[in-house]
């Protein structure tokens, strides 16, 4: 059957349409949620429109109810009095005729139509009235009058309940709201029932059905007007709100934009101040703040410049006398054998200490350059493994003197990288020198390894190590793990701080693991590409409280 696949096709199309619809609804919803979160303007307007919409709806409904009640009550009163009058008039006609003579059938019928005419002329209700005169049930009279009804009398609306009510013959009018069917449209109406006593014919029931569609029309018109007015009012309020919010939001956005620019370093940016209102006050105080901040920054920059200048001047001023001392000390040192032993020894001490002083001064200047951010990388193509090999070779004599087995393992780091070789060498010299100094005669391992993102060089000793509280402070300036420890190489106390500065300059870092009695491992990690910071390392280190068996490459070697 061909309907099968086609139906399936149409179903799947339907499914697709449904999915797409859901997709768009979700997107729309997300867009609204986004606007709600991000746009103060949207939120203010939405809240205002929603609340005023609710208020307008409530007020409108109340007004509509009140007006329709009013209109209905008025019509009802009018209909009631009209019906009463009509009943009286009709009854009068019948009564008057009866007073004259006995009635025959035809006369009664004449009377009936007369009454009908009279009733019609008495009802002035717009929209038309339908009349019906029906004989009350269970009447015993000599004569009967035919039930009459005006054309198109809606028999259906005269319910049993109404007939019963009228049948009670209380002398009052019975009213019942009804629905009229007019050309297929339902219209409100009012049915009024009363009784007529027709002589010699008995009790008849007079029904008048009033059409209330005119009142309904009025009410429809009123509600339409109210709705249009309400919607127009909401649109107006939305516009007014957005205008008012705009007055506030636009300066706020301007302020945000300006602060962004200031944050980006354009310290001269200010918010234009207009008028004397709250926004202007905000702008003025913002500008005041910006002014103060920019003054501070300028002052700090000036201070920093002065500081840099000072450091540079001190460098020059210190270096010149130090050069003289150095030259003099070396002259004395070279001829120390010609002096008395004590003077000769003094020359030696002078020589050694001047050298140390020189190193200290150089390190201090280097640190101050880092502080002043006056350092720059001077990258060149470097093969890290080759560089590490150079350094290890350089330190072999020292390691031999300290009776330390200096091992080098290079599973990685054989490709060329852009590095500042001078700085990387300085870092490695420092790490290897420290490892030999603190290695306690046990082997020192230098491991170069790499992964996709980093190249790492680990320097591991298995010497005295440090407790965790010391390990976290090794990069502090002039900090010494054990002040009483004998120094064999004689660092300045700035070595690791400078090394860390050098590593950071490359976008790299230095991590440390250490445990008393188990030794220390320092890992220099450098990024392969760019100078973005590294988060992982080709040689990962455990936390200080965990145990460590050395870099993977070394463990595998064992």
């Amino acid at each position, binding site marked *: 059957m061909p309907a099968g696949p086609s139906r399936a096709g149409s179903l799947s199309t339907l499914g697709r349409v449904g999915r797409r619809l859901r997709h768009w609804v979700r997107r729309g919803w997300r867009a609204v949620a986004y606007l709600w979160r991000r746009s103060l303007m949207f939120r203010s307007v939405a809240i205002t429109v929603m609340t005023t919409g609710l208020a307008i709806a409530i007020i409108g409904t109340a007004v509509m109810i009140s007006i329709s009640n009013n209109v209905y009550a008025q019509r009802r009163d009018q209909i009631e009095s009209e019906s009463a009058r009509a009943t009286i008039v009709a009854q009068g006609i019948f009564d008057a005729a009866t007073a004259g003579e006995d009635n025959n059938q035809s006369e009664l019928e004449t009377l009936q139509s007369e009454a009908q005419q009279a009733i019609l002329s008495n009802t002035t209700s717009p929209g038309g009235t339908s009349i019906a005169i029906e004989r009350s049930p269970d009447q015993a009279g000599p004569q009967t009058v035919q039930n009459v009804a005006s054309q198109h009398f809606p028999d259906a609306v005269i319910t049993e309940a109404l007939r019963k009510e009228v049948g009670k013959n209380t002398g009052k009018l019975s009213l019942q709201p009804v629905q009229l069917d007019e050309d297929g449209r339902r219209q409100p109406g009012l049915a009024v029932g009363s009784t007529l006593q027709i002589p010699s014919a008995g009790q008849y029931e007079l029904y008048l059905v009033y059409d209330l569609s005119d009142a309904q029309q009025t009410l429809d018109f009123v509600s339409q007007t109210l709705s249009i007015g309400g919607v127009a009012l909401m649109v107006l309020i939305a516009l007014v709100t957005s205008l008012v919010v705009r007055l506030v939001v636009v300066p706020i956005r301007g302020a945000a934009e300006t602060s962004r620019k200031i944050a980006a370093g354009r310290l001269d940016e200010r918010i234009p101040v207009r008028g004397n209102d709250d926004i202007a006050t905000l702008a003025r105080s913002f500008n005041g703040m910006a002014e103060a901040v920019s003054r501070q920054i300028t002052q700090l920059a000036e201070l920093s410049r002065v500081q840099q200048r000072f450091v540079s001047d001190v460098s020059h001023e210190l270096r010149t006398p130090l050069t*003289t001392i150095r030259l003099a000390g*070396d002259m004395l040192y070279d001829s120390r054998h010609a002096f008395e032993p004590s003077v000769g020894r003094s020359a030696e001490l002078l020589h050694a200490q001047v050298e140390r002083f020189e190193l200290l001064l150089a390190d201090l200047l280097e640190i101050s350059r880092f502080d002043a951010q006056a350092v720059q990388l001077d990258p060149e193509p470097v093969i890290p493994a080759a560089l590490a090999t150079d350094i290890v070779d350089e330190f072999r004599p020292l390691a031999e003197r300290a009776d330390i087995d200096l091992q080098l393992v290079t599973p990685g780091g054989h490709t060329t990288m852009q590095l500042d070789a001078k700085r990387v060498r300085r870092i490695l010299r420092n790490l290897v020198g420290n490892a030999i100094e603190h290695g306690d005669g046990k082997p020192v391992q230098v491991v170069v390894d790499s992964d996709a993102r980093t190249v790492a060089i680990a320097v591991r000793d298995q010497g005295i190590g440090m407790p965790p509280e010391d390990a976290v402070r090794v990069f502090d300036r002039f900090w010494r793990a054990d002040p009483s420890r004998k120094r064999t190489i004689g660092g300045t106390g700035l070595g690791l701080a400078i090394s860390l500065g050098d590593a950071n300059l490359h976008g790299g870092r230095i991590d440390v693991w250490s445990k008393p009695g188990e030794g220390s491992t320092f890992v220099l990690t450098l990024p392969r590409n760019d100078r973005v910071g590294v988060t992982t390392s080709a040689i990962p280190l455990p936390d200080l409280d965990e145990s460590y068996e050395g870099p993977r490459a070394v463990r595998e070697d064992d």
Partner: protein
Amino acid sequence: MTPRILVVDDDQALSEMIGIVLRSEGYEPEFSADGNDAIDAFHGTKPDLVLLDVMLPGIDGIEVCKRIRAESGTPIIMLTARGDTADVVAGLENGADDYVVKPFNPKELVARIRTRLRPTASDATVLHVGDLTVDVAGHEVRRGDAVIALTPLEFDLLRALSEKPNQVFTREMLLEQVWGYHYKADTRLVNVHVQRLRAKIEHDPDNPKIVTTVRGVGYRAGGA
């Protein structure tokens, strides 16, 4: 003949100390403490080498360097307190042959002086590179009949490159051969002096044909 060395430094103690060192090494020091006086002292003493402090009262060391170089190829070694600043490059670009960073020790200073005063080996050969004739014995470079005035350092640099035409010299090799450094030194020395040399010998220094750059390696003479 004792080589004469003009020491231009405003620090009297240092000047005197340098003088002691120089005398002990067999040189004859002359002194000037002021940038303005330095040029006159240069004319008066006709030194074989100038030791020049960068920071001087009166006109500064860079300017002194420029003025001396304008009239003479006498080797100039700058004394600087800041080895990594623009001072060094400025000094080299204005004609200084080498520099020593304070604080230096006597051996370092003497080694630098010795390299610059070292008599060039007179193999009595004549080298040809491009359209240039390098007369090693005569310490002269000619293009046709026109003599091109080079400083001794620039001459040494050109000679080193010309002696092995088409061989690529790394900056480190040149530092060792021309400047006498046996360890890693400042490669800016080479870069700056190659530029100065090219400015004198090339037809179009921006498009060098005689001393060419081999990217990532170094320099060579004679072109490819």
